[in-house]
Each structure stands twice: as C-alpha cells, then as structure tokens.
C-alpha cells in the first residue's frame, strides 16, 4: 500500500515544532512512532499535507521521578516504559498495559506512549480499506450522516481502544499540552470530548509534551481481552487502582476501556469498594458487576466480537484487575 503524498518536516527543537504546528494547524500531523498514523494514512482515512516528525527531538523521551509524581515524555517508546523499574513499582497498570500493545516488533520500539494515548478512536466499519468503504455511504466519522454500528444514531460511536489511556486514567494521570502561546495541564478524564469524530479536547496547534502520573501509594493493575494477545486492539479492558490502609480500601478507581468513546471512569462501582477488605473477593465481584452494568450502555457493536460478549466480559476483566491489584497491595 502506498502512502499518500505529503511534505516531511523534521524540526530540531520544541520551539520550532510548535512554530510549525502554529503555521500549518489542521494541515499538519505529528509523526512520532507512526504505527497508528501511517496505517490510517495508507487506508486513506487521513491525508495531511505536512508531517512533522519528532525524530530529532530527543528531549521528549524520558521517565523521571519527581516529588509525588512520575513524568513521562510523550515520545518515550513503549519498550522503555515496560523496561522501567520505576513504572513497574509505582504504576504497574501502565507497565502491564504497554506490554499488551501490539507485538514486540511492531509497537514496542517504534510506538510511543503519547501516540498510544492519542490514537484515534476506531470502529470496524470505519477503519477499513478505501475499497471496502467505497461500497457504501460515508458514516459520521467519514463526514456522512449514517452510523453502521448503531441504527439511527445521530453521532459517531467509534471506540477508544487505547490500552495506555485506560491504565493512565485509572492512575489519575494528567497531560501537559504545549502550544506556541501557552502550556496547560489537563486531567486525562477531562481530555475527551465524548464525540467519536474528534475524540480529544485538543487544538490542532497543540502538542502533547508530557504525561504526569501522581504517585500516592496504592497498587494498580490492568487486564484486557483481545482476539489475539499480540497485534489486536482490546475488545474490553480494565484498569484499576486500589489504595488501602491496614488492609482496608480507602481509595479505588475502576476504569473500563474499549467500551465507549473514551475510557470510562466508573464512580459508583469504585466507591462501592470504600472500606472493604483487600481480601474481600465478594466485594470485588459486586463492584465488577456494577462496573459491567454502568459500562454496558456505552458500547455499540463496532470493534469485533458480539456486543453481548464484550459487555459480559467487562465483569471478568474488572474482577481480574481488582484481584491482581489487591494481591499486589497485600504483598507490599
């Protein structure tokens, strides 16, 4: 498959990058690892006039421990995150999630954490070859007025299948977005527009610079289900964070991914765990069922497998993630 034509720019400094972004805005796309962007370009889903490569920007690839947080540069390869003891110890869910992204030779060396968080929403009616799509009318995401995933839907229901974003939301991560004029920090939970067509609340002249994970103790875990363990995107995934004092849970965050237009933080299921014992499997089961009930209505049949199966598996994934996090918390 040939790539469409574009102009290739490789700025050497962050300032130059932001200048270029400010000049080209919507005509430009950022090229980091390219494992998502180039595929979409090959399929004709996107044809930017300009690609701005981050290859020459070495100072965006780092993992750094600060007081009470870990900051990760946006172009840090997934392989570095998996290999990091720091992430393993303080943000296990992220480590486990990155390990699951694609296959070793595909994503781990080329793919970046920033790219994983910013990977566009997917739908098996939309992410297809040009030929496949040419057979029928354009859907919402392709600029039309039809949704093939849900009858008479008035909007796009494409699904956020990012492993990294689900784990990061469970960890309560923040994103640092920079543009030529300013720099802002936004909670990952507030970063989504709830619109499948433009899923991220981010201006076209902004660049994701850094991901900040607060470290406040507690242990986290990530579990996912996919057709094949390598290559495929998750069809259901769950990231959880459990904080406990004296084996009593005092903080819980349950996030379910690959079910909606963004990872879903399930407040009710999370708060049901407050005050419960770390060994209380029944409480985990109840929370997992609650998570399934809350997450199920968001999903539509658009990422393979049947909707019923994916909905049922939410409970399994959340339960597995909770028990894994609890086991890790007890071992601490």
């Amino acid at each position, binding site marked *: *498959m*040939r*790539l*469409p*034509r*574009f*102009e*290739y720019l*490789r700025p050497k400094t962050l300032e130059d990058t932001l200048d270029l972004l400010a000049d080209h805005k919507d005509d430009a796309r950022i*090229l980091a690892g*390219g*494992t998502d962007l*180039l*595929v979409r370009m*090959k*399929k004709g889903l996107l044809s930017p006039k300009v*690609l701005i*490569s981050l*290859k020459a920007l070495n100072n965006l690839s780092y993992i750094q421990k600060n007081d009470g947080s870990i900051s990760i540069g946006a172009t840090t390869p997934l*392989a570095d995150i998996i290999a990091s003891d720091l992430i393993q110890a303080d943000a296990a869910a992220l480590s486990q999630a990155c390990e699951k992204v*694609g*296959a*070793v*030779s*595909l994503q781990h*060396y*080329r793919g970046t954490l920033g790219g994983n968080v910013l990977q566009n929403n997917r739908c098996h009616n939309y992410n297809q070859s040009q030929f496949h799509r040419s057979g029928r009318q354009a859907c919402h995401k392709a600029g039309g007025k039809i949704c093939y995933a849900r009858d008479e839907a008035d909007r796009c229901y494409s699904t956020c299948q990012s492993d990294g974003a689900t784990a990061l939301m469970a960890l309560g991560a923040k994103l640092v977005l920079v543009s030529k004029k300013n720099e802002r920090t936004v909670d990952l939970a507030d970063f989504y527009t709830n619109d499948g067509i433009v899923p991220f609340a981010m201006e076209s002249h902004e660049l994701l610079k850094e991901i900040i994970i607060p470290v406040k103790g507690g242990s986290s875990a990530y579990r996912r289900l996919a057709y*094949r*363990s*390598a*290559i495929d995107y998750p069809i259901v995934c769950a990231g959880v964070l459990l904080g406990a004092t004296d084996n009593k849970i005092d903080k819980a965050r349950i996030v379910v991914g690959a079910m909606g237009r963004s990872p879903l933080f399930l407040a009710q299921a999370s708060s049901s765990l407050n005050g419960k014992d770390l060994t209380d499997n029944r409480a985990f089961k109840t929370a997992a069922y609650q998570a399934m009930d809350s997450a199920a209505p968001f999903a539509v049949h658009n990422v393979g497998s049947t909707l019923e199966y994916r909905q049922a598996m939410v409970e399994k994934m959340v339960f597995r993630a909770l028990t894994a996090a609890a086991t890790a918390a007890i071992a601490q």
Partner: protein
Amino acid sequence: MEKISITLDVNGKLCELMVAPNDTLLEVLRDDLDLTGSKESCGEGACGSCTVHIDGKPVRSCLTLALEAEGSKIKTVEGLAKGDQLTDLQESFINHGAVQCGFCTPGMLMSADALLNENPHPDRTEVRKALAGNICRCTGYAKIVDAVAHASHPHEGCPDCRPYGRSESKGEE
C-alpha cells in the same frame, strides 16, 4: 513532490539514494536497493513479514518512513549470513523444516535474531512472545518455535537438531 537525498546504512553498506517523503523503508529496500528479502504482506503492521532491524531492534519497515531511518543502522535478512556461511539460526530453520511457503520466514528470522541477540537461550514461551507479531499462514509455528529455541544449542530430545538428528554425511550414503 521533491525527492530528498539521503544516505542509508543497510547491512553495513552506505547507500546514497533519492527518496520521496512518502516512500516507506520497505519500498526503498525492495525497489531501489533490490533487497527483496523483506516482504510486504499486509502493509499495515499486523503481519510482520517486513520486519527489519533498526539499530538492533526489530521494527516494521512498512510503517517506517525511509526518511526516518536515516542515520540508523539497518539490517535486513540479507545481512544475516556472512557470504555463504549461514547463521546458526538460519541453519536451524533449515534443519527443523521451519519453512513452508517461506513468505513469513524473513520476518521470523529477523524477530528471532533480535531475541537471540538479547537472550541466546530462550525457552519456548519467550520465543512465542518474541514471534507473536509475526504471522505464518501455513500455520507451521511449532517447527518455527523449535528452530528458534534450539538455534544456539542443539536439543537432545529433538529429532531435527544436529548432531542428535540426521547425520551430517547424509549425502554420501
């Protein structure tokens, strides 16, 4: 679209060539440098048949722009053997019959080579993990996994491993 002059370090040789921004590394390797060992199959990073090494790490050449590979050391399947002298891994693939149609083999070799460079004695689980991104549609994975796991040291129980299996002097009999 303007072509850009770049120098690629492929298998230890410096190659100067003109590439378009939208040329992938795979296209340049196959069409301009005639290194047709790396194959294009899916073209979207799922199958692994285009795997090459960039700075010692296996990556998909179909999802790497040629321009992005500038300044890195690229190794393709042609760069494994030294002249006619095959590597242990390649010998092992032949001995184990780990080749059916052969289309996935260059990618399998490159992924396996990267694994063996880091871990010369992998167990089967590690091999399967390292090869998880390479698809073989002949579904001959068992032989391939054996070939990689036994590449650096012949396995006593394995009938395909020399010197325990078929004798070297088979041709003379």
